[in-house]
C-alpha cells in the first residue's frame, strides 16, 4: 500500500514537473526576472558605493523580484485553464487535493534554486563592487539573509500559485496580487499591520532592525509567511475540490 502511494506521488510529481518545465512562459519569466534583478542590483550598488552596505545593495531588488515570482506561481496554476488542459489533468490525476498540493511542490523545486541563484548573485555582485568600502559581514548573517530571501521568494511564488488556482485566470490573479504588493501596501503601509504577507516576509531577509520595538524578528517573519502561504494554499485546495472544473 505504501509502495503504491509512493508510486502515485512520484508519478504526480513527475507529471507536474514535466508540465512546468515544458511551458515556455516559465522560462521567459525566470529569464526576465534574472535580467531585471541584475540591472536593478547594478543600479542599487552604484548608489550604495558611498554607504558600503553589501546586504542592503545586494537584496535591494527583492521588492521587484517578488513580482517575477508571483508571475511564476500564477502561471503554474492558471495555465491549467488555457486550452482546456484542466480536463486532461483531472482525467489523468483525479485526486484533486493531492494533485494541486504536488503541483505546489513541483513549483518549489523550481522556485528554490532560482530564488537562491538570484539572491546570491545579487549579494555576490554587491560584495565584489563594494569590497573596498564595505565593512566586513558575518558569514552567518549573509547565510541567514540569503536563506530568508530564498524562502520569501518561494513563498511569494506559492502565494501566486494559490491565487492562480483560486481565480483560474492569469490576469485577475496578477492584478489583485500586484495591486496589493505595489499599490495598496506602499501607499497604506503605515496603517497596515506588520503581519501581512509582504511586510512579514520582508523581515525574513532584511538585516536586523535598529529599532527592535517596531519590527518582527526573522523567525517571526518566517512563521507568519508560512502561515499566510498555508492559508492561501488551503483555500485554493478547498475551492479546487468543491468547484466544477
Amino acid at each position, binding site marked *: 500500500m505504501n509502495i503504491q502511494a509512493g508510486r502515485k506521488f512520484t508519478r504526480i510529481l513527475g*507529471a507536474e514537473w514535466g508540465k512546468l518545465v515544458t511551458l515556455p512562459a516559465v522560462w521567459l519569466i525566470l529569464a526576465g526576472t534574472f535580467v531585471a534583478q541584475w540591472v536593478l542590483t547594478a543600479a542599487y550598488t552604484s548608489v550604495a558605493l558611498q554607504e558600503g552596505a553589501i546586504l542592503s545593495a545586494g537584496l535591494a531588488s527583492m521588492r521587484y523580484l517578488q513580482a517575477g515570482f508571483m508571475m511564476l506561481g500564477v502561471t503554474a496554476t492558471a495555465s491549467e485553464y488555457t486550452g482546456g488542459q484542466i*480536463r486532461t489533468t483531472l*482525467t489523468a490525476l483525479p485526486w484533486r487535493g493531492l494533485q494541486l498540493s504536488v503541483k505546489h511542490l513541483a513549483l518549489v523545486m523550481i522556485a528554490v534554486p532560482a530564488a537562491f541563484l538570484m539572491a546570491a548573485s545579487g549579494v555576490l555582485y554587491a560584495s565584489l563592487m563594494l569590497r573596498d568600502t564595505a565593512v566586513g559581514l558575518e558569514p552567518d548573517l549573509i547565510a541567514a539573509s540569503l536563506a530568508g530571501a530564498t524562502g520569501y521568494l518561494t513563498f511569494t511564488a506559492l502565494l501566486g500559485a494559490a491565487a492562480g488556482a483560486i481565480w483560474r485566470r492569469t490576469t485577475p490573479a496578477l492584478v489583485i496580487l500586484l495591486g496589493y504588493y505595489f499599490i495598496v501596501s506602499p501607499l497604506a503601509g503605515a496603517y497596515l499591520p506588520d503581519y501581512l504577507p509582504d511586510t512579514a516576509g520582508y523581515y525574513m531577509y532584511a538585516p536586523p532592525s535598529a529599532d527592535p520595538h517596531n519590527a518582527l524578528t526573522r523567525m517571526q517573519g518566517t512563521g507568519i509567511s508560512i502561515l499566510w502561504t498555508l492559508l492561501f494554499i488551503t483555500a485554493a485546495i478547498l475551492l479546487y475540490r*468543491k468547484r466544477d472544473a
Partner: protein
Amino acid sequence: MLTINNLVKRRGTQEILSGISFEARPGRVTGFLGPNGAGKSSTLRILLGLDHATSGSALIHGKPFAELQHPLRTVGAALDGSGAHPMRTGRAHLRWIACAAGLPRSRVEEVLDVVGLTKAAGTRVKQYSLGMGRRLGIAAALLADPELLVLDEPVNGLDPEGIRWIRTFLRQRAEAGNTVLLSSHLMGELAETVDDVVIIKQGRIVADGTLEEVTGSHSTLEQAFFALTSEHAGDLR
C-alpha cells in the same frame, strides 16, 4: 461497464440533467446522441469527475472516477478540443500524461504514430488545425491502452479520412471487448459505428436501446433521432 444512474445536475435555477440513467456495456459501441445543449457533455463531465452531480451517480466498474486506482489505464477520455496548453508541443503534452500513468516515453511515440501526428509532434499545439487537435486528444486517450473509451464529439474537425479511421478504430476496440461511449450530434456519421444508442433531449433520455430498437420503423437513425427530438415529439422511451 459504465453506469449512469438517476443523474441530476442543476446550475442555479436551471436543471441541466433531469434524472438520466443508462449503461454502456463491454464489447459494444454506445452512441450518446442529442442536439447541442441537450446535456451530453454535462453527463460525460460528471462521469469523468470534472463536474459534480447534484444527485445520482455516474460509475465506472461500480466506482466514481476519482476513486479509480489507475484512471488512465481504465478510461481514455477525449472531450472537445485538444485538452492541451497551446504553448506546449504535442509530444511534451503526451509525455507528462505518460508520466502520470507510469508509462515509458516510447509509448508516446507509438500513439503519435497511431493518430498520424509524428511529424507534428514537435510543433506547438497552438499551430495545430482543429483536426490535429482532435487527433492529439485521441492520442492522449489511447496512451495507456484503456479498457473504456469516452469520446465527446470525436468526429468534429476530422477530415473524411480521419472519420473513416476513427470508425474503424472504434469498431476494433469494441470487438476486442472494450467499452466505447461516444457522444455526437451527427447521426449520419454514427449509424455505421454504434451498437447501442442513447438519445438525450433537454436533459432527459428519450430513447435507449440497440441501434435496431431505436431506429424502429424509421428508415434511418437520423430520421428516428429527429422524430424523437423534434419540438413536438413525446417521450417515446
